[in-house]
């Protein structure tokens, strides 16, 4: 995109169930292993087979912040995919298409490469299943990558199915590779040389980073119910958490999942569940129980598009209100939002820490675009997040009756675990006094609510600002962006683009949204000329929240399309706001 540096976008579109996603993942991993930075986005229909799948990978020799705005190389594997996406291909870009499935198109402004992918797979290789590997070979050759990059990933992908399958796929890979080498005269060296392959970078997606981060954070109990796009968290944990002595349970529904988590946490284990909006809705009652009975729990909501069934496979930031306010009466909870794949690995450890230390529910708002974003990240620093432990009573110095809910300055009271001698108590959702006895007096309710909410205050005063990231210099900036969650990379890229057009922007991202670090947000807002709040939902939930919690009157830019925000559109909005 810029200068002679490597930076381009490949988009794949094809029939769901035909291996487009695995083609995308193989291509991405192959390029990442050559040393390039990658950043992907995928969207697919909710049906297992049928409909069009889209997989986009941006490839560069420098760190990437978004999946890009324009498509440089478009690979169309079915006709519907062709029609839906051809307008995104930039002038001068390249179209590669499966000539068995897509009718011939004349595109004077583009380089066009028809490949009979199905015919090659069926006639030359003898297996129509190898179609996506034929395509992989063709794309790698077109981009100028060595064939070995494809062999490596094909071997890894098909090893489990036996040597014969590996060989078939090698043939397919070479057939696609050679086809392009022979017949195409518009080859272009998309891939400039990379200086060196950095072994300290990983190629990983948001859900995988979350699962591994949770294990690093001491997770010992997970219960969940399958729901797109959160299911892969449970699938990632199931084979590995038991190695660490932990338990993974598939519950009968989301209510049971959180019930099991609260039971396990009450009994002393670091516990978590993950779901998406509809499942999160079912958990709301027990989130209050966790707050009231003061039981640590982490609830991950991988937000998806639309309300009700909505757009299960698409992205949104539409659950903020539910996370902040989804509750009967009032009960303290912490709401956190990771801003990138790398951040997810660390922030989930903090989420577990905060839940344990403050004995309350922590809601962790990821989303589909972040969960399925596969990208290169620096190898994580496993020592970065120190472990916080739950405060237990001292078994050797018990004075009188054990006060499970002792009123303290911080609001945190020592929590006994079943099995501890002499500390038996009943954890309860009913309003209770310090000794956990049901108590209905007005004075007690005031005191207990005060105690529980003081935990949020303590967290905010002592740690809130550590979880705020500021990009750029807010002093006198034309536009100050306050954002949350997965949009961070896109916003940073949009800021750079605006800068090139003479508009200076800065951005602030709080990773703890409740309690909101109001002081630092107001300070940031006071330094900039105008405040803009971009978010991927329809009503501007975060902007409304900021208005209610601070003295700021931000300009809301809320777009709910099922897709992540686009750097170009955000840049345009920054310019518009700057020139208001």
């Amino acid at each position, binding site marked *: 995109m810029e200068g002679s540096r490597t930076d381009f976008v490949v988009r794949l579109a094809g029939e769901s169930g035909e291996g487009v996603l695995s083609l995308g993942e193989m291509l991405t991993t192959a390029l990442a292993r050559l040393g390039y930075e990658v950043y992907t986005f995928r969207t697919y229909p909710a049906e297992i087979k049928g409909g069009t799948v889209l997989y986009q990978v941006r490839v560069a020799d420098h760190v990437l912040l978004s999946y890009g705005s324009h498509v440089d190389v478009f690979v169309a594997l079915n006709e519907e995919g062709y029609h839906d996406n051809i307008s995104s291909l930039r002038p001068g870009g390249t179209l590669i298409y499966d000539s068995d499935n897509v009718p011939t198109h004349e595109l004077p402004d583009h380089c066009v490469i028809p490949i009979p992918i199905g015919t090659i797979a069926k006639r030359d290789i003898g297996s129509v299943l190898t179609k996506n590997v034929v395509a992989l070979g063709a794309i790698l050759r077109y981009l100028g990558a060595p064939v070995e990059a494809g062999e490596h990933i094909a071997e890894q992908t098909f090893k489990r199915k036996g040597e014969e399958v590996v060989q078939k796929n090698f043939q397919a890979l070479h057939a696609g590779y050679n086809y392009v080498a022979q017949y195409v005269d518009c080859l272009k060296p998309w891939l400039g040389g990379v200086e060196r392959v950095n072994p300290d970078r990983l190629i990983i997606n948001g859900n995988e980073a979350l699962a591994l981060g949770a294990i690093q954070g001491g997770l010992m109990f997970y219960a969940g119910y399958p729901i797109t796009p959160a299911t892969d968290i449970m699938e990632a944990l199931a084979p590995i958490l038991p190695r660490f002595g932990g338990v993974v349970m598939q519950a009968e529904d989301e209510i049971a999942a959180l019930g099991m988590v609260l*039971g396990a946490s009450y009994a002393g284990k670091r516990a978590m569940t993950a779901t998406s909006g509809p499942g999160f809705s079912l958990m709301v009652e027990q989130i209050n129980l966790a707050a009231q009975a003061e039981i640590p729990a982490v609830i991950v909501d991988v937000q998806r598009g639309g309300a009700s069934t909505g757009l299960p496979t698409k992205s949104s930031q539409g659950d903020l209100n539910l996370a902040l306010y989804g509750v009967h009466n009032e009960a303290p909870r912490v709401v956190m939002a990771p801003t990138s794949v790398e951040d997810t690995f660390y922030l989930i450890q903090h989420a577990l820490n905060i839940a344990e230390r403050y004995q309350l529910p922590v809601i962790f708002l990821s989303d589909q675009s972040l969960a399925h974003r596969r990208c290169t990240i620096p190898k994580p620093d496993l020592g970065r997040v120190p472990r916080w432990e739950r405060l237990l009573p001292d078994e050797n110095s018990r004075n009188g009756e054990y006060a499970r809910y002792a009123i303290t300055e911080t609001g945190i009271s020592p929590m006994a675990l079943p099995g501890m001698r002499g500390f*038996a108590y009943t*954890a309860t959702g009913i309003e209770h006094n310090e000794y956990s006895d049901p108590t209905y007096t007005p004075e007690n309710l005031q005191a207990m609510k005060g105690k529980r909410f003081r935990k949020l205050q303590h967290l905010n005063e002592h740690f809130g600002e550590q979880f705020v990231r500021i990009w750029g210099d807010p002093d006198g900036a034309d536009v100050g962006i306050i954002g949350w969650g997965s949009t961070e990379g896109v916003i940073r890229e949009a800021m750079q683009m605006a800068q090139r057009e003479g508009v200076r922007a800065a951005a602030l991202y709080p990773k703890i949204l409740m309690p909101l670090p109001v002081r630092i947000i107001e300070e940031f807002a006071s330094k900039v000329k105008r405040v803009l709040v971009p978010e991927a939902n329809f009503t501007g939930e975060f902007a409304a929240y900021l208005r209610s919690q601070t003295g700021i009157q931000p300009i809301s830019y809320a777009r709910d399309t099922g897709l992540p925000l686009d750097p170009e559109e955000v840049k345009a909005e920054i310019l518009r706001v700057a020139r208001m």
Partner: protein
Amino acid sequence: MAEVQTISVETQVIQRQPKDYKSDLEPIWCPGCGDYGVLNALFKAMSQLNLDPDQTVLVSGIGCSSRLPGFVVTYGFHGVHGRVLPVATGIKLANPELTVIGVGGDGDGYSIGMGHFPHAARRNIDITYIVMNNQIYGLTKGQTSPTSTLGFQTKTTPFGSVEGQINPLQLAIVSGATFVARGYSGMPNQLAKIFVEAIQHPGFALVDVYSPCVTFNKVQTYDFFKGRVYEIPETHDPTDKFAALRLAEEEDPFPIGILYRVQHPTLDEQVALLKQKAYTPNPSVEQLLKRYQ
């Protein structure tokens, strides 16, 4: 291992009496409520097993009977309506050493919580589940329940209930529960014996207890049960699933005792085996991250 293991010498075994399990909280139940009989039978059973209160957890939901954990000196978890079984499952899996006993009413267990009941049974989680079945909603002052009889008149069914009943015993048996019994709070000694067997049973043990609501249920009263209950004779083979199902079908008189008892691997045993299967020496996140290089 060359280390010498030191054996803790706790030679003095304390024999706990039923009253030792009673907490300072006085039950909030109406005078004559069947739940007193259940609580006393539970105290007796706990004393007979000499259960360590610090190693025992009582889990409940919402309803009159769900207040029970507060009246016992063990650990307790008084959660939300209908979620006894998931919470109890989480506790047992987190610490299999604990004795976990779920308690609640027919509304909590068989209505709002019914979605969890067959799953707890099929998992055969090693917990005891005591349902105080009064065939009515008591805490909300008299509405129909899933165990109310057809035609039963309540405030929400003034013309008589138009719905059939759930048979929790049969449902438990066909769902995979490995211990299924029925008790009656008017037969406290026998109820204590059932509790002893249920708590000792390795696996999911359901004890459905007829526990009359003296305030709101004017049909299934103590008088009603007089002459309508009988102890299951010793000739019954509790390992015979079909005999158990037939017994569970009987009404008037109602059989009281252990209908079904078999042994299958429990969920906690299976999870322990799974951990062995997954065993890897010195697992580390460092190692796991290599896959992503």
